[in-house]
């Protein structure tokens, strides 16, 4: 699969990245090289391998716990009102 400059532009939009013209040009040559390198994985026959994560760690039940730092977190926001983050209009 070739990664075209058009695709670089589309990926940047999807990733919410604004790229300068120079960055777009650089990535158009670098990203295909990196993807070309990882393409070697495609030839590995791995049908026998379980796809489950076999990581060392164990998970706890997913549940909310008060951490007592809500206000500290909100304080880091560039703009906040009361218990909320301010966001600019969508359109």
């Amino acid at each position, binding site marked *: *699969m070739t990664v075209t400059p058009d*695709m670089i532009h589309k990926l940047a939009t999807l990733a919410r990245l604004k790229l300068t013209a120079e960055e777009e040009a650089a990535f158009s040559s670098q990203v295909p*090289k*990196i*993807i070309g390198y990882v393409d070697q994985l495609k030839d*590995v026959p791995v049908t026998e*391998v379980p796809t489950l994560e076999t990581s060392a760690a164990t998970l706890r039940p997913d549940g909310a716990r008060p951490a007592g730092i809500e206000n500290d977190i909100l304080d880091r926001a560039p703009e906040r009102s009361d218990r909320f983050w301010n966001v600019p*209009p969508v359109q």
Partner: protein
Amino acid sequence: MTMDLRFATISELTAALTAGTVSSVELVERSLHTAQAENKSLGAFLSFRGQAVTEAARSDERIKEGTVRSLEGIPIALKDNLDLVNETTTAGSKILENYKAVVTATAVKRLEDAGAIIIGKTNLDEFAMGGSTENSAYGPSKNPWDLTKVPGGSSGGSAVAVAAGHVPVALGSDTGGSVRQPAGFCNIVGFKPTYGRVSRNGLIALASSLDQIGPFTRSVRDAAKVYEVIAGHDSADATTADRPVEPITIPKGAEVKGLRVGLPKEFFGAGVEPGVRQATEAAAKTFERLGATVVETSIPHAPLGLATYYVILPAEASSNLARYDGIRYGLSASDAKHLIERYATSRDRGFGPEVKRRIMIGTYVLSAGYADAYYHQAVRVRNLLREEFHRAFDTVDVLLTPTSPTPAFGLGARTDDPLAMYMADLLTVPANLADLPALSLPGGFVDGLPVGIQLMAKRWDEPTLFRAAAAFEDATDFHLQHPPTAH
């Protein structure tokens, strides 16, 4: 004999502190003074903590009272992706230039509770993405052995701080070799614990299935000591294992009789410089001389580790870094008047090129239509690697390899070629992919530059890993050589 405080180990400093021949205030002032004076040439630190002197005075009180904790009064440094509450954590990025942490990282809190004194935060590749510390938004760190060379990365600042004699211990984070590789480049010990051993609460996330916090030290025993302090379950990091941390006991003149050392042939292949290969083979001979059995072994898919890593890492990093949106914290482009524009402009101004590049690759390998060919396939190959390591440890106790294919390379030599930069991780990423504990320690020199050798053990087998490493260290004197100190 007068001890050289500058390059002393934790054990030596603890002995001097309890004997009263030096105070913690003196140690900390000395650390701050040398680190600050040399920061212009070495670029190791991003910030210093003047309050460390006051904290050291409290340690001196405890030493007088006889209530000494395991790291009482010892100056340490933290990679600047580790949080200290209400203090700045930049992660080497412009996007967090003014960010004040909300919590103290669990591993850091444990060091503080053991009496360690934090003198400052160290330089790193932006968000720990890199192998040279040249991707820091605040300028590169330099290798104290040769100022024209990189110190490695991403925890380059922490490696320099220990190697140059500013602190006896610094914490780093290791996602694909970011502790071990700079340790190897700088002739010190760098240790990555088993995945799930050390809490990442308060560590800025890079790739959550790979990240582990680990120490840089001047001796294997010091690394074990710091490990014992920071390891263990933490309810704030659900991936930490709820199993006891075995105490590490390493006798003087540690024994390796009967230890089975495997040399996985794939780690000695293409790309590994002859001098590095020779140093590692010489290390194997040392183990043999000490009574270990050395055998060749194989991890057939290890050469695919790097490709696997450079799919999984960007996939996880692009997801983790979605949180930097200019809304919740960090740099915000307040002149961008609409939501999507605010996101994109904030990220454009805040992120450097390597971070953007990895977000792009992560977005690509996770996108509909490509996720199975790239991300899911990489996860499958990762499982294959895990199985192969698991099988290898049926017949050997530790694996011995070079830490990096080459010694430290020149500043700027790889900055235009991301793939060449990634190659520096070739031999370290497999341990992260397979969750294994791994350690780099001084293994020789090539043309005056240090060569690190790497030991890996099976999951949770830190005791064997440390014992093997200590035996090698006891039998060699590479770790006693220090870089020139006039920077």
